[in-house]
């Protein structure tokens, strides 16, 4: 008795059970041994013999091992069975997870391939989502963004959707602020303006915004260092040369210098004192592009170009956007109603400047993207759809892998079912496994996606990198990746789980005698998935090809000026502190000296950058003034110097160019383009007629008509344009256009050094060639086609891997059949053909389906394509051909290995 007790205690020591539990077990086991002993005695055994036998029964057992296994599996059994729930969902889940992890560890090859495949799909999704999240979903680090609204001007009768939002004049803004009560606080900011900053030796171009003193308070943000503007610093024009530096600019342009506060920097040659650093991550309210520095709006005169110097006192100069925080409980509609009443009264009081002007109020979340919102939304949706499809392909690959594993696992599943495992429990277990796999892929995908984003973001133009939005990897990105991974796990796991759980014991046994007859069924499901994959890959490839072709033809668009052998230099003499006389002298001198450089055939000055023209609304044509307000005439206005048209290669239709004699005191004149001429002078009598530009007093006499060019975007619809001579319209911010005889890049340096000789302080860092202008105009589209191409190829390679996998699997399954065929005299070629035919049937049906879908997709896209039809034969053909070649390779390799099956070996195996 004593020894039994000791023996049992000895065996239980390694278990570390709670003392009470241990005592219970010991008591129960002792009972058992006691019973055995008594029975042996009753059976006539001698006490010593009985005693020995009882001890022996204990010592030959591996009680410890068995008990340990039991205690380790507290809760349900490791092989989950039907209704054998512990009743605790969490405990069950934990159990399932541990079991799933064990199963995945057992097959590292499968796990690695599946997780990598998923990682590619999830990574692509995460990357695209991160960018969208950065640009669209979490734009501003301000307080309660839903209360903030942006106020712009617009022409009456135009809806906000028309995109014709205009800036407001400072005086109109001030009146609005005084007369409305809808806002607890109303501030204004200008757009980011390019200015010249001189802090040490090297002058640099940065972007500044003029803001009212309450701007930062209205947004509810706090400086990360120093302070923001005081009300007193925003009352007297020119009195408070103080500046708030953006956090990114402080880090990037000043190396995060800790002693930055109190430092003086020169902005456009006026010294400003830095009083504060903006909060980290805040780059103005315009989500895409932000300023480096903020100055009080009263300093407008010091930082704005000459034409806008009177911005604070001239109601006609529009530079500001209002930002208001809505009073609590007030709806946007109520605020709009109040604003429109004030706008109407301003229109009555100041008909000269405010006629036809209405006020637009939009939530800041909507306004923060400006005109880019539409293309951004479209691009985002398209990209999201595409990476969604890529993920679908990855899912179907992994589903196929799981299906082939399911065949292997039928034995395991059959045993579980024989032991009473219920279907739902089995499905739950299998799904836990696939979700775990999905999450594993998700973690890898998050890393891939993050890397991909960084890579993509590194293509930002370096000169603006600090002004563009920063990538945000935040909780919503993690949440997104997690959700996608979990859903993915369910998606690719559900069909295999349903199928596997339908296994029945008797069928598994039958199957073993019938050499896997049932796996045919599996192959047909796999084939369906493959057909879908091929079809989706084809659609993606076709879309990529269509966009590529569209960009190709955009390059052939004639912008209306000669882009080859053209270079331009942005120079703002006004920002170097030049007055009008000095600036005009500078224009003349540089014209003379640069014109003398060998290889330069002509040059001119103009105020507009190609494809960055600004439209002005409110042009008045003499004799046609009495138009309805809603029909206000708008035109792109460009101030130009002599020889502009010959330098840019814009031909004259009729009339004459500006000459040396068109000066300040002579008759004010203008040149228009043929679009405007045809629209307003249908009888071709425009020469000698007069027009008036918005906010200007003089009527200008038309002396010439030139061909229409592209002014705002490449391939735009023809727009009216008015050119006015520099000599009658002074400007201190001009762009130098140079036409060269050969490749312009060779002469760039020579021009630069000439300008340096003329004035070493003038920054000439923004130089581009004409072709680069076109490149930049298509930058976004090119990034787009790059992404589409990458995702299309990703889809193709995933589909090819899937195809190869399933073909190799099916060849392996059919080894016996192939062996028999070969034993009966089939040649290697005919066996290869057999396998190839099987694979290519799937591929061809996928291609047929894909072509149908691609035509539909092309049709949906056609209005975004330029110069290429949605059903473009070349795109469709090229994509199909590429897919067929890759698919053929994926089928050929297994087919070749099939032809090498040794009939003897194959027959012997089975």
């Amino acid at each position, binding site marked *: 008795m004593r020894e039994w007790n000791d023996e049992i205690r000895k065996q239980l020591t390694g278990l570390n059970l709670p003392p009470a539990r241990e005592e219970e077990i010991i008591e*129960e086991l002792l009972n058992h041994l006691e*019973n055995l002993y008594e029975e042996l005695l009753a059976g006539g055994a001698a006490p010593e013999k009985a005693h020995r036998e009882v001890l022996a029964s204990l010592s030959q057992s591996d*009680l410890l091992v*068995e008990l340990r296994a039991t205690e380790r599996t507290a809760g349900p059994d490791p092989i989950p069975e039907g209704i054998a729930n512990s009743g605790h969902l969490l405990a069950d889940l934990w159990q399932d997870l541990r079991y799933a992890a064990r199963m995945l560890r057992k097959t590292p090859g499968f796990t690695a391939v599946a997780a990598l495949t998923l990682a590619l799909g999830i990574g692509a999704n995460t990357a695209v989502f991160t960018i969208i999240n950065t640009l669209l979903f979490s734009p501003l680090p301000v307080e309660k963004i839903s209360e903030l609204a942006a106020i712009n001007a617009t022409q009456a009768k135009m809806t906000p959707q028309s995109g014709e939002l205009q800036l407001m004049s400072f005086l109109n803004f001030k009146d609005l602020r005084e007369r409305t009560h809808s806002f607890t606080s109303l501030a204004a900011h200008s757009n980011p303006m390019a200015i010249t900053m001189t802090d040490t030796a090297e002058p640099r171009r940065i972007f500044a915004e003029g803001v009212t003193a309450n701007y930062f308070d209205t947004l509810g943000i706090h400086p990360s260092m120093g302070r923001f503007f005081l009300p007193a610093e925003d009352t007297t024009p020119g009195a408070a040369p103080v500046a708030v530096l953006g956090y990114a600019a402080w880090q990037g342009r000043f190396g995060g210098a800790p002693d930055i506060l109190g430092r003086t920097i020169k902005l456009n040659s006026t010294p400003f004192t830095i009083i504060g650093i903006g909060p980290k991550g805040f780059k103005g309210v315009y989500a895409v592009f932000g300023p480096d520095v903020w100055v009080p709006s009263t300093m407008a005169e010091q930082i704005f170009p000459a034409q806008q110097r009177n911005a604070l006192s001239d109601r006609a100069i529009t530079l500001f956007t209002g930002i208001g925080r809505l009073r609590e409980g007030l709806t946007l509609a109520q605020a709009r109603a109040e604003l429109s009443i004030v706008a109407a009264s301003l229109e009555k009081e100041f008909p000269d400047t405010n006629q036809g002007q209405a006020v637009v109020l939009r939530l800041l979340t909507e306004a923060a993207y400006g005109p880019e919102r539409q293309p951004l939304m479209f691009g985002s949706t398209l990209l999201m759809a595409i990476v969604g499809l890529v993920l679908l392909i990855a899912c179907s690959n992994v589903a196929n892998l799981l299906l082939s594993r399911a065949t292997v696992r039928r034995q395991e599943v059959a*045993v579980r079912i024989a032991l009473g495992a219920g279907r739902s429990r089995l499905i739950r277990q299998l799904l836990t496994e696939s979700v775990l796999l999905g999450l594993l892929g998700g973690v890898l995908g998050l890393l891939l996606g993050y890397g991909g984003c960084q890579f993509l973001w590194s293509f930002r133009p370096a000169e603006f990198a600090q002004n563009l939005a920063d990538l945000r990897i935040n909780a919503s990105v993690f949440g997104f990746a997690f959700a996608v991974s979990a859903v993915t796990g369910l998606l690719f796991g559900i069909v295999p789980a349903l199928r596997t759980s339908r296994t029945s014991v*008797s069928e598994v046994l039958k199957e073993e005698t019938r050499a896997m007859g049932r796996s045919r069924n599996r192959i047909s499901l796999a084939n369906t998935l493959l057909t879908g994959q091929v079809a989706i890959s084809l659609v993606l490839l076709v879309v990529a090809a269509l966009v590529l072709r569209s960009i190709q033809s955009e390059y052939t668009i004639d912008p209306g000026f000669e882009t080859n052998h053209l270079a331009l230099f942005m120079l703002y003499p006004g920002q170097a502190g030049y007055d009008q006389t000095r600036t005009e002298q500078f224009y003349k001198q540089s014209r003379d000296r640069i014109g003398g450089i060998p290889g330069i055939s002509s040059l001119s000055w103009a105020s507009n950058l190609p494809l960055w023209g600004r439209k002005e609304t409110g042009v008045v044509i003499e004799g046609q003034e009495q138009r309805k307000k809603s029909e206000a005439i708008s035109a792109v206005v460009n101030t130009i110097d002599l020889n502009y048209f010959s330098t840019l290669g814009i031909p004259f239709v009729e009339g004459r160019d500006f000459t040396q004699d068109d000066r300040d005191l002579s008759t004010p004149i203008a040149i228009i383009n043929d679009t405007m001429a045809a629209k307003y002078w249908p009888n071709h009598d425009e020469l000698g007629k007069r027009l008036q530009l918005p906010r200007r007093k003089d009527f200008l006499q038309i002396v010439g008509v030139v061909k229409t060019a592209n002014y705002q975007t490449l391939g735009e619809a023809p727009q009216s344009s008015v050119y006015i001579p520099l000599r009658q319209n002074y400007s201190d911010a001009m762009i130098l256009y140079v036409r060269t005889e050969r490749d312009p890049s060779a002469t760039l340096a020579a021009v630069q050094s000439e300008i340096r000789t003329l004035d070493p302080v003038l920054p000439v860092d923004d130089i581009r060639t004409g072709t680069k202008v076109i490149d930049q105009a298509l930058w976004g589209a090119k990034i787009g086609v790059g992404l589409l191409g990458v995702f299309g190829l990703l889809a193709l390679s995933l589909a090819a891997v899937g195809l190869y996998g399933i073909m190799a699997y099916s060849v392996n399954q059919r080894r016996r059949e192939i062996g028999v065929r070969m034993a009966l005299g089939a040649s290697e070629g005919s066996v290869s053909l057999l396998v190839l035919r099987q694979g290519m049937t799937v591929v061809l049906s996928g291609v047929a389906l894909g072509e149908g879908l691609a035509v539909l997709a092309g049709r949906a896209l056609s209005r975004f394509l330029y110069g290429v039809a949605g059903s473009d034969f070349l795109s469709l053909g090229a994509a199909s051909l590429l897919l067929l070649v890759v698919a053929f390779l994926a089928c050929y390799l297994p087919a070749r290995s099939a032809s090498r099956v040794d009939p003897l070996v194959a027959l012997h195996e089975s």
Partner: protein
Amino acid sequence: MGTTLDQEWKKGSAELLILALLEDQPRHGYDIGKLIERLSGGMLRFHIASLYPLLYRLENRGLIHGRWVEKPNQRRRRYYRLTTQGQITLARQRQSWREFVSAVGRITGEEHA
């Protein structure tokens, strides 16, 4: 043959038999072991090291429930009874077992021969 059958059987369906034995009335561990041995005509035998861990496992999974019972002039014993979950599982395992046996029968030709 006896030992192989014994091992195979235990691995597969020991649970089924224990559940079946507890269907009518609660029993203690020694009783269960004896009954299995007796009813199988000595073909099936449980070691103490496999019987009790199995009972604990079934209890952990909520299929059976053990309770100490004291009777006059006896040591107290732990009696196990079938829980509702245990009854459902038993029914299910019986069904699977029948399918299994009939499948084996069909293949080996014992059933209709």
